[in-house]
């Protein structure tokens, strides 16, 4: 039963919800939907009793792995603990049952929270202007780039089309650049894993609209020339964008403002502990320096004198990037995280995240290739096994699954061959790190002595390796009722 899909446990006549009497039953008899508008072919939806819906999805959950299951060191994803109090607060009906089109005076609680969260994120990034509207990190990127574009248009710099992006950047960066109508220009990294300043210099010219950068970068390295980089872009009238995905290394230590950035987005679902939800919802607030404040998407919340809050569109706003005010349900969780951690707690979190990463790196250096020797920040990369034989990083990852832990991000960044990108986060204890390290060391040994164990892995998960090739060639993207072809 466990492996059936919901349609396969469906049967005519079952139902999962019960309606009792409807007071307008008689009244309703006078209404009929005209043929023109009436649906002809009924959609096929499953018919399942409530208790079987519960079993079905309970069993599905047991075929998933989450942070509450164990270590989940996905690089650049910051899979930290998701505090349960956040969920309790977000579920309070006085928040979750509020409508965005109610009048401001009816939702002052929500508005005060948004206002205070704007302030906290401002303090975290140094940026005086914050808009919470973007729904995810890459949505924040797009928003930030739109702000850059509008600003450059207003400055008369319509010719500035080029956005410089390091080759180690998240794949969303160039995609966002395209969506905002810019052109991406890639700058190489040097042997130390940071931006090659000479290569950068060659790319910078009057057409440079700006630069996007993650700092620490996706190799887990702090861009040592960051002040010089941001200065050089500013020199040609460009703006510098900070991809905040890696902010978990920086809290209370350094800030985008101090590094010279003009715009930053934050991933509340990474740095600020809101759950990842199997892929979302996230939230990607954008912060900007003073001269860009009026370009923020809106509405944002401002305070009047008497602890009363109102919505406002910034004067030169790029407009709305999402319905209403963004993912309020996610803000609530981030807001609570600020309250429970406090300023000192956040700094400590970043310090321990960096400690954990450096510790793991130190423990793995004899068995795995360490392409960059410098101190890492909250994450680090390995270039596969020191003695790989015919074993790939994919094999290592799949073998980790047999040991009941989640593999790191693999094959990213693209510039590191056989890359494993490990971000333990501050939530993991020394014992858990040691367990994970020991598994990785054991796998390195197995790779030499019993490589077939790795090639065949995983064997203990609910499925073995899946054929991803033929599905991309002739995709089955929805249930084939009775084996029919669509």
């Amino acid at each position, binding site marked *: 039963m466990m*492996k059936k*899909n919901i349609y396969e446990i469906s049967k005519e006549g079952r139902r999962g919800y019960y309606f009792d009497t409807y007071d307008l039953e008689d009244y309703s008899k006078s209404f009929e939907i005209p043929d023109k508008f009436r649906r002809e072919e009924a959609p096929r939806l499953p018919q399942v009793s409530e208790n079987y819906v519960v079993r079905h999805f309970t069993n599905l959950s047991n075929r998933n792995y989450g942070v509450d299951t164990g270590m*989940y060191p996905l690089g650049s994803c910051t899979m930290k603990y998701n505090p349960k109090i956040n969920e309790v607060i977000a579920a309070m009906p006085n*928040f979750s049952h509020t409508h965005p089109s109610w009048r401001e005076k009816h939702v002052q609680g929500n508005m005060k929270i948004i206002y205070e969260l704007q302030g906290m994120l401002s303090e975290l990034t140094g940026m005086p202007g914050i808009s919470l509207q973007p729904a995810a990190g890459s949505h924040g990127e797009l928003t930030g780039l739109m702000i850059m574009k509008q600003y450059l248009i207003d400055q008369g710099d319509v010719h500035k089309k080029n956005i410089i992006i390091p080759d180690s950047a998240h794949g969303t960066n160039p995609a966002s650049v395209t969506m*905002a109508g810019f052109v991406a220009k890639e700058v190489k990294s040097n042997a130390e894993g940071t931006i090659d300043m000479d290569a950068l210099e060659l790319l910078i010219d009057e057409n440079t609209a700006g630069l996007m950068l993650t700092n620490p970068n996706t190799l887990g390295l702090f861009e040592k020339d960051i002040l010089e980089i941001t200065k050089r872009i500013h020199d040609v009238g460009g703006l510098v964008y900070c991809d905040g995905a890696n902010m978990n290394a920086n809290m209370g230590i350094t800030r985008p403002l101090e590094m010279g950035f003009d715009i930053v987005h934050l991933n509340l679902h990474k740095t600020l502990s809101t759950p990842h939800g199997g892929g979302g919802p996230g939230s990607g607030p954008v912060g900007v320096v003073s001269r860009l404040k009026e370009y923020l998407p809106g509405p944002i919340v401002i305070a009047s004198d008497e602890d009363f809050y109102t919505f406002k569109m910034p004067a030169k706003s790029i407009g709305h990037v999402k319905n209403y005010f963004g993912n309020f349900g996610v803000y609530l969780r981030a807001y609570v995280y600020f309250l429970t951690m406090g300023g000192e707690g956040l700094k400590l979190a970043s310090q321990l995240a960096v400690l954990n990463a450096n510790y793991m790196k130190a423990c793995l250096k004899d068995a795995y290739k360490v392409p960059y020797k410098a101190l890492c920040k909250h994450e680090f990369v390995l270039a596969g096994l020191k003695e790989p034989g015919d074993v790939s990083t994919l094999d290592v990852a799949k073998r980790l699954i047999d040991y009941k832990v989640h593999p790191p991000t693999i094959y990213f960044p693209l510039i590191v061959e056989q890359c494993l990108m490990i971000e333990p986060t501050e939530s993991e204890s020394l014992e858990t790190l040691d367990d994970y390290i020991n598994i990785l060391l054991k796998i390195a040994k197995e790779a030499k002595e019993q490589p077939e164990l790795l090639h065949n892995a995983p064997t203990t998960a609910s499925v073995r390796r899946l054929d991803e090739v033929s599905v991309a060639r002739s995709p*089955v993207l929805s249930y084939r009722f009775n084996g029919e072809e669509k």
Partner: protein
Amino acid sequence: MHPYLPHTQADIDHMLQKIGVESIEDLFTDIDAKALLKSPMQIPKAKSEGRVIRKLTKLGERNIDTANWLSFVGGGIYEHMIPTIVPHLISRSEFYTAYTPYQPEISQGTLQAIFEYQTMICELTGLQVANASHYDGSTALAEAVFMACGTTRRDTILIPDTLSPESKNVLRTYLKYKDLNLIEVPSKDGVVSSHLLKEYMNEDIAAYLVATPNYYGNLEDLTGVSEQLHANKSLLVIMSNPMSLSLFKSPGEWGADIAVGDGQVFGNPMNFGGPTLGYMACTEKLMRKIPGRIVGETLDLDGNRGYVLTLQAREQHIRREKATSNITSNEALNVLAATIYLSTMGLAGIKEVARRSHINACYLRDHLKGIEGIKVMHNQQIFNEFVIQIREGMDVMKSLELFQIIPGIIIDHEKNLLLITTTEVHEKEDLDTLVVAMKEVLA
């Protein structure tokens, strides 16, 4: 140590020793001193759970008490009954503490649920391929524009003026920086005539984006529209409140190429507008153009069925700057809620929800119609919303506050137009309460 941080001082010392540094501060020597924060962040000291709950309870009380107010507000976000098993199941931590299913072998739960969701969306929209998911209905609509412009290699989009302001606003922002054009077709009596549409056809038109039911709650008659557009080599994109699709003609039946909308109505609370989920479905022909997460069914090494993310080449992993969408994190947990909701309700369930929502609106419109000072604006087929005009100078929002009623949304302050919405959560007595209160304040 803080409860979320498992480190003891001894652990820290041990780890520093292994790394070969003296102190935690030594781990940050690679940061230029000028970039370091000079003074601590001005963020208050940590609070205990007890005090946080006390504080948030107080903040919650600065919103109206939702249990004791009667609201007829919709316009894009709707209050429907949510079966108790939905929050129960999405609270399984294996679901909500996981991320994108990069490792399919230990993510079959998320993957299979998405596959089931895709099937349900295909069935509801009458189209062949669905993704999971967009941030909301409006951003899904914006991404449909990019799909349409990319496919047709054209740069102009037609929309009716009956599209919701939220969607119009988001579209404008998305299109502005890509130098795409947006043309609005005017409505008459709350809908757009397909005859009028003909006048706008030309070889720049990539697509016609139409919402039905539209912002005024009216169903658009789209007879012949897809034929007009396809003859012009343009696409038809239909946006719907998907709850209406159990009763009313589906996008597929109208001949749409792409269907989008907001899935909040399926098992998701209003959440002050977010997070919700944007759904998108398209024809088989457009399969390789659809952005976002898509799950496919396949086999494992032992020949057992399993699920994987697929059609990812379009995305940021490989083609990077050629990608037409940058979406990665989406609204997966909301998708899960929608999947559980639809599994629980089944077709009979959502039809009953839709029917009661619809009949409630018809009843209310009927009973408000006769009241002095109220004019029902349009004579159209509705689903669960309609527009009335209130007598000039009458601030009905303020007057009804005394009754703890929010009667709807004022969508035009000058004309004093009120958009009223009902769903199945309204009992007959709630509807009668509004009618009586309206009579009283307008008397």
